[in-house]
């Protein structure tokens, strides 16, 4: 139980820090990193639940979920980074605030 709580707390903290980073940092790469931290938090929470189970083996369902989640997250990260780099190529900056509100040419 204590282990569960320790990791669960950690996961909550990670999630919050990730969220904080996502909304506070203007740079896109940092936002994506923050999202990954959020994801890490969520995964850690699931796994800590899996560990908590009474059965001798740990619960395989959250594990499978996390495995799936990791792949999903890396795909999303790769896609987001690709977009970021494309934006960076075209506009020369890596920020999303004050996006131009007019049509281009």
């Amino acid at each position, binding site marked *: 139980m204590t282990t569960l709580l320790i*990791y669960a707390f950690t996961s909550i903290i990670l999630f919050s820090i990730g969220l904080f980073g996502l909304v506070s940092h203007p740079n896109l790469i940092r936002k994506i990193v923050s999202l990954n931290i959020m994801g*890490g938090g969520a995964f850690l929470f699931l796994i800590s639940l899996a560990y908590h*189970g009474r059965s001798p*083996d740990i*619960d395989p369902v959250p*594990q499978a979920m996390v495995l799936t989640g990791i792949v999903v997250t890396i795909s*999303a990260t790769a*896609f987001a980074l690709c*977009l970021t780099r494309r934006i960076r190529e075209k506009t020369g900056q890596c920020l999303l605030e004050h996006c131009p509100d007019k049509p281009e040419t």
Partner: protein
Amino acid sequence: MGLIFDLIIGLSLAGVAWRIVRVREHFQAIVLFITFGLLLSLAWTRLKSPDIAIAEAAVGAGLAGVLLMDALGTLSSTRNQPLPGRFLQLFIPCLFLAGLMAYTILFIPADFQGLGPMVSEALPDTHLEYPVTAVLLDFRGYDTWLELGVLLVAVLGVLCVRQAGTIKGSMLPAPAEPVGRWIIKLLLPLMVLIGGYLLWLGAFAPGGAFQAGVVLASGGVMLWQAGHPSLALLHHVWWKILMISGFVFFLILASSSLLYNQQFMTHPEAKMWILGVEYAATLSIAICLISLVLASPARNQGDQRARKTES
């Protein structure tokens, strides 16, 4: 003892995460993120989840690191930005949120069961020995299939964003380095070996398609990083076919169940089928991940131009 270890891991995870968010230099942040990944896999190991540990080590620390570094390479001039204002306005609600969530966690029922017992009950029916693989490929095979779909769509999305028709177009190997090549020559067989082993292991012990695929993908990326042209030699049609193979294999398996007039995604009882799916999935995971990393715009002219204008 275990608790102290847990605490240390937890605290360091939190600390590293905080540093990642607050550190000024992007490069430093990414290095810290790789550390974070490693710490996480340590936590996974501690939580008796070796599969995830392997995947995390390969993905979180490895592939994500490479991706981020690659992206950062084009961003070198934008570091040292001032950190944003509104620290407190954001931090206080964040603290509240964390506090609330922490409070609710205390209510996790002490007799929490999960689905573990049920899985072990149903395990014999799957003809698989390792529960995680069983869940992944049998009980929740639909998820896995869709997850392969996510990978595929991510590749498609990257292609779309790049406005590139094939992966091959942007897959010129990095400038060859003699040292790198030498290392590759040593490491690559090892990687393939590890991947294969993990795949084989998946049927009855920690390991499986994901882990194998991720490891293979890391190998492939290294190969490319070292400037080895071997990947580029693959014809792009083959490349495509390999990429979708896992998804397609699943799809065929799933739809064939319709022919037998059975529930969707019910597969024949032979273990071979599942293994076949696993192999195809491994390959396509590897290829997709490699594509994701490689299809990202490498240092092409547009980048250089952008860099010039900035400096």
